[in-house]
């Protein structure tokens, strides 16, 4: 039975977030098509949030589909598996979907066309596994958050186990325009998602699952309700469609009326949030032992001939996906990996997609709305758009004047860089670029500060060592002189 949730009135009354035109169709109505095998697979090592993975294969080695090619490095990291069978032709710099355009480390794999699986070992009833075993296997399969943040799922489960979790929230809101990959996954593999959510519930010891789906996806809500019917503890909840409803904190507040503490984690209020795609991946990993090597990607935008959703192997270059979606109908103004609000603009089409890439968009000039920014008229629409209650115009004003500390004082650290303020600004001021610059600068200053502290320790250690050596030399000389004097005295005495 579905639990009917009355979102807290105050939350609906206070105007936050924006209603961008969704552009979901026609991709949302077309079924998922397999994108097949591209000529070259490029597996980025830093595609997940946290430390880049460490390669465990050598150039020239032949790997099978699903074989682990890189181990997680450090506490927060994730394993990387070969998306198909083939030979490793290079481990090195390759173009990456990063706003700077700088390359990153990746493993390049030439598929041999056989697509032979490595020997998998699934479990017919994974629900009986111990919670620790579940998160170990999820880590084993390299499952990461599919919503876009790509945070290693196993780490989130382990985090959940440590603090008492009583609610698992599945994020099916998909509030970014153009994207409909979660919508399709909910419509076509609702059962996998529900099973995966029960596994997550078991892994974290939660008592219930809430699946939040925006009301602009009625078919997905029905499909998920049917799949959730046999399990009373899983309930599907319709939530108002508004961007950024899919942000973790906003979703928790809308569903449970609880605000997670700023700077803290969702686990602080007993909640774990996972994308619906991640739940499906958890189920496939535990039930069939399949590592995360493919995902559903929405290929859309004004410049794409026939926009649709593709099930693509991780590491597939953008060019291959665009060709599978009918190619470019006209020259795009901007190629974006991810959604239009938070995605990364890229220049080079042989950039691969990572596990967290939910969309590939070819946007035309009209859609991007490029215009020379004019002076800020303090209209305040960015203030009402901000889901966190910040003053974007004041922060941007301070950053423009170079006072990053003052911008931090009025809440820069709480900014989600969700882009709602940049979207509504009538003067087209690149607000989010200001905030990303400021945060990057602050992080760089912090890192530089830590480095200087370490260097100060080295310097003091060195000067300490030199002093000690000088002292010891002086003492040694004094001792030797004393012995020589004593010896000389003994001779004269004798």
């Amino acid at each position, binding site marked *: 039975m579905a639990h009917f949730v009355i979102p807290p009135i105050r939350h609906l009354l206070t105007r936050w977030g924006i209603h961008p035109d969704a552009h979901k169709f026609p991709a949302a109505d077309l079924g998922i098509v397999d994108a097949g095998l591209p000529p070259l697979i490029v597996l980025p090592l830093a595609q997940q949030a946290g430390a880049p993975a460490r390669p465990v294969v050598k150039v020239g080695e032949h790997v099978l589909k699903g074989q682990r090619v890189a181990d997680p490095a450090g506490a927060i990291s994730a394993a990387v598996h070969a998306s198909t069978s083939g030979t490793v032709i290079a481990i090195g710099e390759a173009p990456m979907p990063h706003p700077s355009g700088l390359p990153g480390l990746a493993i390049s794999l030439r598929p041999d066309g056989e697509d032979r699986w490595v020997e998998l070992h699934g479990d017919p009833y994974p629900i009986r596994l111990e919670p620790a075993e579940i998160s170990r296997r999820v880590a084993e399969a390299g499952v990461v958050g599919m919503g876009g943040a790509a945070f290693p799922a196993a780490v989130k489960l382990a985090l959940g186990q440590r603090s008492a979790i009583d609610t698992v929230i599945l994020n099916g809101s998909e509030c970014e325009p153009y994207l409909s990959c979660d919508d399709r996954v909910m419509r076509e593999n609702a059962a996998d998602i529900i099973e995966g959510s029960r596994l997550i519930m078991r892994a974290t010891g939660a008592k219930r699952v809430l699946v939040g789906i925006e009301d602009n996806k009625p078919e997905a809500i029905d499909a998920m309700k049917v799949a959730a019917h046999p399990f009373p503890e899983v309930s599907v909840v319709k939530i108002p469609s508004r961007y950024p409803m899919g942000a973790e904190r906003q979703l928790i507040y809308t569903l449970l009326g609880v605000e997670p503490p700023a700077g803290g984690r969702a686990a602080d209020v007993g909640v774990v949030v996972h994308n619906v795609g991640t739940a499906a991946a958890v189920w496939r990993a535990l039930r069939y032992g399949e590592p995360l090597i493919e995902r559903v990607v929405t290929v859309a935008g004004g410049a794409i001939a026939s926009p649709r959703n593709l099930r693509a192997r991780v590491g597939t270059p953008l060019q291959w996906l665009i060709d599978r979606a009918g190619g470019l109908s006209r020259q795009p103004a901007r190629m974006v990996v991810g959604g239009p609000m938070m995605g990364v603009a890229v220049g080079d089409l042989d950039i691969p997609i990572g596990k967290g890439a939910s969309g590939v968009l070819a946007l035309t000039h009209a859609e991007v709305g490029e215009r020379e920014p004019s*002076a800020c008229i303090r209209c305040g629409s960015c203030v009402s758009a901000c889901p966190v209650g910040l003053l974007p115009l004041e922060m941007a*004003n*301070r950053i*423009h*004047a170079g*006072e990053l500390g003052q911008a931090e004082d009025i809440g820069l650290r709480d900014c989600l860089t969700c882009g709602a303020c940049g979207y509504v600004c009538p003067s087209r001021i690149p607000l989010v670029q200001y905030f990303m610059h400021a945060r990057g600068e602050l992080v760089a200053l912090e890192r530089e500060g830590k480095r200087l502290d370490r260097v100060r320790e080295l310097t003091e250690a060195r000067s300490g060592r030199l002093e000690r050596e000088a002292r010891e030399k002086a003492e040694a000389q004094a001792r030797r002189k004393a012995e020589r004097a004593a010896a000389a005295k003994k001779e004269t005495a004798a």
Partner: protein
Amino acid sequence: MQEVLMTLIGLVLVNNVVLVRFLGLCPFMGVSRKLDSALGMGMATTFVMTLSALAAWALEHALLLPFDLTYLRILAYIVVIAAVVQFVEMVMHKTMPDLHRVLGIYLPLITTNCAVLGVPLLNAQSGSGLGMSVLGGFGSGVGFTLVMTLFAGLRERLERAGVPEAFRGPPLAFITASLLALAFMGFTGLVPAH
């Protein structure tokens, strides 16, 4: 109570010591670059004005009137005010060192602040009693702090605005101060000037 309230509003808004009587303009222009230093300066000046109004009244009635030395009024008041400022600076240096560092050079400047000398003189001329003169000192101080804070808020906002090269800094500060004085003219006549 009604009467006290009216004089207070009269001193703070209607004949504000800075924007209407145009006293104490040099710290008004000098210290209003940053908001926290403006607030600190305002509080320090209010404290000094209240204390010196009290001291001046005491001096007036204890020493100057009995020996009818009223021609020494200005000299005596300046000495008292200097002593009060020095006392406040010592207290602040001890208790609030960071505020003291922020105000720095402007703290001794309170001695030369014409509002601090003007108010006791006005009190003496109008022959107001102890209560009224202390209220006069305190009210003028509050008026001074209010206007300093408003002006500092405006200047901090203008620091970041794209002000044309020719007007950056003091020229724009003067224009803003004049517009602020224009706005305060709205209060003329609000309270019958005492």
